[in-house]
């Protein structure tokens, strides 16, 4: 059976691992149609490699980026140290705007803190398939996640549940009287 085009293309790019690579090579020795397709892909690859690619000076770009970052760090003054010159009418309007925003915010906060967003779901169940922590860790390791932060908790003491896991904004938590 002949390999599909994607597989043949991957073979030409040397992206097929053993033992499939060897099996494809032996198939190509016997199959003229596949050999033709392979030749087509290889000549296409050669032609593309001969096209001059745009040369980017990444080091120069990196230096420009670093320079702008440095300039930005130098140039950023705290807001209270900035010189701001405003026309009198604009300054008065700005003061009114700030006052109005303050009043609006106060009213908004008095309206309650029920803006925590989407529905929170919490559930509890027994995990029948996994019997102990070692087995669980093996299962979780097999899942593998990119960009994972791993934190090892101290071995001292066992942890106990006090309720369901919960996410809170800091303001909501402080409002609960814990801090």
């Amino acid at each position, binding site marked *: 059976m002949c390999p599909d085009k994607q597989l043949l293309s991957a073979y030409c790019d040397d992206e097929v691992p053993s033992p499939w690579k060897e099996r494809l090579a032996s198939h190509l020795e016997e199959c003229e149609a596949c050999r033709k397709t392979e030749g087509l892909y290889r000549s296409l690859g050669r032609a593309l490699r001969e096209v001059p690619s745009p040369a*980017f*000076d*990444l080091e120069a*770009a*990196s230096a420009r*980026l670093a320079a*702008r*970052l440095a300039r*930005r760090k130098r140039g*950023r*003054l705290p807001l209270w140290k*900035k010189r701001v010159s405003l*026309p009198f*009418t*604009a300054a008065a*309007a700005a003061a009114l*705007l700030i006052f109005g925003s303050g009043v609006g915010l106060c009213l908004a906060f008095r309206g309650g803190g029920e*803006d*925590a*967003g*989407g*529905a*929170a*779901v*919490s*559930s*509890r*169940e*027994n*995990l029948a398939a*996994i*019997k*102990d*922590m070692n087995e*669980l*860790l093996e299962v*979780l390791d097999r899942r593998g*996640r990119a*960009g*994972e*932060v791993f*934190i*090892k*908790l101290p071995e001292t003491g*066992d*942890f*106990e*549940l*006090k*309720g*369901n*896991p*919960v*996410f*809170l*904004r*800091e303001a909501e*938590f402080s409002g*609960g009287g*814990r801090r």
Partner: protein
Amino acid sequence: MMRVLVFLSVCAAFLQTPGLAAEDSLAPENDEPRLPEKERRLDESFFSALENALNMNIAARISEAGESAVWNVESNECTVSGRSVSVKLVGKNIVIIAEFTPYVGADNSIVLVAQGQVWIASPEEPLKYLSALTSIPVNLGERVLFFPLGVKSLEASADNTYDIELEIKILPRLLAEKGGSSR
């Protein structure tokens, strides 16, 4: 109409004020030599990626009976809108996986989609699994707390068990690099 004019004049005044408008931008300065189109586009790609990058500050704490932290660890992860950061905490009888995905809106508002999973073992009961999923609108720099063991009630604060707390704070990467994450 008058109010619109006043508002526009305030905006114009702010935009003319040096150091306020486009302060956080990495746009080239006027005195920089004009780059060829190819280099300019490359620079723009770099700057855009950098300006949109977010820094997720992760702090894990353990406290005893509601007291101050007896153990803590901190980490920083770089991410962009829509890309999750996963945190795995492993203890003697507990495994916690928390996944945080920030979504930045067109108005720079952030919605943090947070998912938490907890596996906990005890001598009396079989391995337990708990989970929580929520979306939280947050401001830049605002802290979000995750309590994988639940929040202990005030009445029950006399017990001697440990609390675990995970704190997440999102800042623009450029601001975080300047030390804007300090409390």
